[in-house]
């Protein structure tokens, strides 16, 4: 009987979709160059997961088995497209920063979305959990990448604050700012998580 306090971190990292199961690599590696991008992508993903999660419960009951998967894909694409339009309208620069990787999310939502087998509450919890895990992992990688690879932290502009926090120190390592850096960090994060899982198991 595990304690609640130990359970959550274990599920957060041990079963983290990005780090433990390596799902959603393409958008994850691309948008983890800035913390702002990472958080934004994760937010959209959470939105899409919640939407498909809730709707899946109904789809499960209403549709025959063969149609469930295409229906969920359609739903995920619709939600992501909606989020994309929303972004274009309200924060075009941020949306442009995400580029093509936003629509790619749709497929990942399909993979990570719950099957809708349980109740609405369960669906919501599962979606929220997975979305939060993805967000945490992506944000951590983005943080390390930006700090070591670009010497700054990019957050959302609010009022007078431009959103960019510059850091002083050693010259930034460009490898980390580029794609290989993402691979390195993801690989080590994944290795760390697996090692902890093996020790606990």
């Amino acid at each position, binding site marked *: 009987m595990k304690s609640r306090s130990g359970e959550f971190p274990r599920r957060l990292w041990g079963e983290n979709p990005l780090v433990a199961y390596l799902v959603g690599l393409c958008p994850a590696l691309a948008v983890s160059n800035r913390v702002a991008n990472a958080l934004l992508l994760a937010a959209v993903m959470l939105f899409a997961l919640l939407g498909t999660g809730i709707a899946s419960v109904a789809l499960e009951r209403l549709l025959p088995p063969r149609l469930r998967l295409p229906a969920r894909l359609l739903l995920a694409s619709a939600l992501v497209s909606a989020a994309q339009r929303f972004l274009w309208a309200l924060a075009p620069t941020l949306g442009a920063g995400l580029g093509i990787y936003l629509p790619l999310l749709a497929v990942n939502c399909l993979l990570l979305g719950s099957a809708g087998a349980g109740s609405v509450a369960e669906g919501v919890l599962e979606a929220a959990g997975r979305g939060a895990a993805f967000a945490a992992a992506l944000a951590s990688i983005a943080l390390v990448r930006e700090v070591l690879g670009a010497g700054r932290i990019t957050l959302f502009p609010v009022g007078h604050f431009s959103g960019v926090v510059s850091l002083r120190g*050693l*010259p930034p390592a*460009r*490898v980390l700012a*580029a794609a*290989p850096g993402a691979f*390195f960090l993801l690989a080590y994060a994944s290795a760390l998580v697996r090692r902890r899982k093996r020790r606990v198991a």
Partner: protein
Amino acid sequence: MSQPAPHLHQGPTTRGTMLAAAGCLVPAVAWGVLVQGPGALAVLAVAAGASLACELAIGLAAWRRFTLADGSALLTGLLVGLSLPVYVPLFVPAVAAAFAVAVVKASFGGLGRNWMNPALGGRLFVTFSWPALLAVRPRPPAGWLRVPAGLTDGSLLGGSGQLGLVSTLLLALGGAYLLARRIAAWEVPASFAVSFALTVWALGGLPAGEGLFRGDLPAALATGGFALAAFFMATDPVTAPRGRAARLAFGAGCGLLCFLLRVYARRAEAPFLAVPLMNMLVPLLERPAARRGRK
């Protein structure tokens, strides 16, 4: 049965191999320090020190083993230091050596398990991370040998030209010793040198519009990086293929890539890029022999 047969052994041990290779670098190191001054010593010392410290830390923390005795960390550190220019800030050789030991070697399982030459891995990491710091900048050398400013490009190996030629000869001398004692396989440097020389001589003049067989062979060969890569990096037994045919193909590939990268892409560190690229192809090169073995 406590102690197994055979009870006699022939040839150097692992440590003997590594230390012999490190020893064969000494003439070139001495020359580099003589020309470039104490800055060179600092780079080498930092690289070697970082490499040893990293291996010690990882060995004790992760594997609970003391692995410094096999001499491979020292050799890696020296090679990293030797491949870098002397004017870089000292954190660069430290990061390069640490990357070489921690990421390229230790993360894959330690000695004998890496697929890429560790020293080159570290060198490439800093090359792409801080390209501005490593850009070739002719500087007046601060060594004990009074050398005019234009003659060297600030690297420990002397760059191209007469100083680079001396480095090349000293490295080749060291390499010859390794070949004679059969510590390094002769097929790799031989085919590397032959294919590089042939391609440079035959096709090197093409970019400059001079036609075939007009390549500037002495300049290409004399650059210290080539000799270092051919005799000390490509011959690393862990990352070079086994078997004569595979080794010849490996060296030839290195030579060809080195030529393309130097003459067409105009990269100064062409040999240091060519060898890791060929390291990646080693399983492919070994496959025919493995298939023959699996009767």
